């Protein structure tokens, strides 16, 4: 790019009569491609840029939505957020979502992928490991609303499959899984682990395929056991994929909406409230559009900040690795 700019400046300074080719070079090459960005730029401006800014604008008003008048509130909505217990609860629950959608699935996924690839795959053949992989991935393909509806019924206190089974084996009063504030959040987390686990397994297994098999063979000849190979080869070799999984899943965990909507609607007593659902409630249930916009704006900032932190950590890890070699 810098090169083209340089040649361009030189050709402009050139006083010799230009050949027809020279005239074409007056503009740098890339300018001709800008028209291909036009549809994308317009579409992104209309569907993402403008709404995003409008949302921030709304967050500065008290507004009941629709035809109601907008009343200027400055940063009042944000000040209110600071004193709003539900707001803090919802972000606290985001941490639980990160445990259920990032931490547990990634750790489980690492172990499962390594076991399937490096242990079972070799002792029982590729077929066994690919069937198991497909099984773990199955929950990922069904619409999250369908998964939620199914689990909502399974965990139902009266007619749900789980409690009917529990009563059948003699448990007198099985817990009201989704209806009791003390069990609702752990139940939701279990469902999310079930949904999420297959994703890291598939990504990590694909990643392991690009690891040189000689590394494993050499380690095995040196007498390294499975755990040694896992620690010294598997984990460091697939670090880039681990970062990608961590980033995408963390962002997804902060944004989670569908499962909460179909499982608990944030209840009971806000014990499973998350920021996205809280802003939805304010938009369409409580008609506090300005307040909802403020929550959505804070959520956006949190997501961007967390993503930047993860990307920064990744860069640092990569740099350290390069210097190490």
């Amino acid at each position, binding site marked *: 790019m810098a090169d083209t700019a340089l040649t361009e400046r030189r050709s402009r300074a050139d006083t010799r009569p230009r050949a027809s080719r020279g005239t074409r070079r007056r503009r*740098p*090459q*890339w300018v001709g*491609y*800008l028209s*291909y*960005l036009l549809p*994308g730029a317009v*579409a*992104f401006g*209309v*569907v*993402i840029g*403008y*709404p*995003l800014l409008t*949302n921030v604008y*709304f967050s500065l008003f008290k507004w009941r939505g629709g035809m109601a008048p907008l009343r200027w509130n400055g940063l009042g909505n944000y000040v209110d957020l600071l004193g709003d217990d539900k707001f803090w609860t919802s972000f606290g629950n985001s941490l639980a979502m990160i445990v259920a959608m990032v931490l547990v699935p990634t750790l489980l996924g690492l172990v499962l992928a390594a*076991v399937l690839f490096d242990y*079972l795959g070799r*002792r*029982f053949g590729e077929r*066994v490991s690919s069937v*198991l992989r*497909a099984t773990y991935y*199955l929950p990922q393909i069904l619409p999250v*609303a*369908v998964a*939620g*509806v199914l689990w*909502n*019924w399974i965990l139902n206190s009266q*007619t749900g*499959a789980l409690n*009917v*089974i529990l009563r059948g084996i003699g448990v007198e009063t099985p817990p009201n899984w989704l209806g009791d504030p003390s069990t609702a959040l752990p139940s939701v987390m279990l469902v999310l682990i079930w949904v999420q686990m297959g994703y890291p397994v*598939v*990504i990590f297994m*694909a*990643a392991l395929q690009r690891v040189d098999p000689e590394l494993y063979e050499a*380690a*095995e000849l*040196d*007498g390294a*056991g499975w755990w*040694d190979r896992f620690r*010294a*080869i598997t984990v460091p070799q697939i670090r880039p*994929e681990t970062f990608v999984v961590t980033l995408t899943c963390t962002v997804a965990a*902060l944004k989670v909406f*569908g499962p909460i*909507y*179909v499982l608990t609607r944030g209840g009971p007593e806000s014990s499973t409230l998350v920021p*996205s659902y809280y802003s*939805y409630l304010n938009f369409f249930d409580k008609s506090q559009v300005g307040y*909802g*916009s403020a*929550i*959505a704006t804070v959520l*956006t900032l949190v997501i961007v900040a967390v993503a930047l932190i993860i990307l920064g950590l990744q860069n640092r890890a990569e740099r350290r690795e390069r210097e190490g070699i």
Partner: protein
Amino acid sequence: MAAVATDPRPAQVRATAVDSRYRRGAGRWLVLAAAVLVGLAVLAPFGIMLLNAFKSPQDYAANGPLSWPSSLYLDGVVAFWERTDFPVKLWNSVFISALVAVGGALLSLLNAYAIGIGRVKGRLWIIALFLLANMLPQEALIYPLFTMAQSVGLSNSQWSVIIIFTVIQSAFGTYLLSSVLGTFPPALLEAAALDGASRWRILWQVVFPIVRPTLSVLMIFFFIWTWNEFFIPLVMLTSNDTQTIPIALASLQGDRMMDAPTINAGSLVSLVPAVIFFLIFQRTLTRGVTAGAVK
């Protein structure tokens, strides 16, 4: 590898290796059993759903969720089918997802052509913007989008959902395709340019045929993602005749008429299209999942 070779306790390591070889016969079956057990735990909800989708409410009350249905009961499927007007919902989902898949892939290709091959100035910033757009919570867009759709007469219209998802999905598509096109063999482009082909012709006659496999993976992704989307369709599609399958299923929730077989039959019927689609494109997809993971 170096870490293994310079392990300070070679004797110990060797000892465990001998141990594990000694136990290999039984040990490997234990590991297999554990992995299969995890698989069964994942499958259990699907199994329970299948068992109870074709079981009458009386049968369920008497024998519980784990028994084999005493007779084939189809009223649950029929009830769900009729109450949701399923063919309409199916068509809505297919229509929206298919148009988004095509439109999103097209928009991604145009963007990526300018970024990956045109190498427009500031392309790193452009890609960063697309990535950012991909991360935004939809809640931060929804109310303005909702009011905009109303003001242009697209409230409760599938076109609003199609336009929104075409753009949202193409954010990821642009990111992925730009990095693919960034490594496009320059010799091909130069040869085409020497032949006097315009940029437009190069895009469709040189670039497009070569990236077609990647585009088809993208289209499958876009289709499934849009199919599974919940939040934006929930807000934008407010009437029965425009809703998609997930919304229809979720809105039946809490309905007094929803007994166990209807819920299970509904879940089953709702996930069948996704599973069929997955099975058809499984090979392309696993390749695609991998493609997404490479930075």
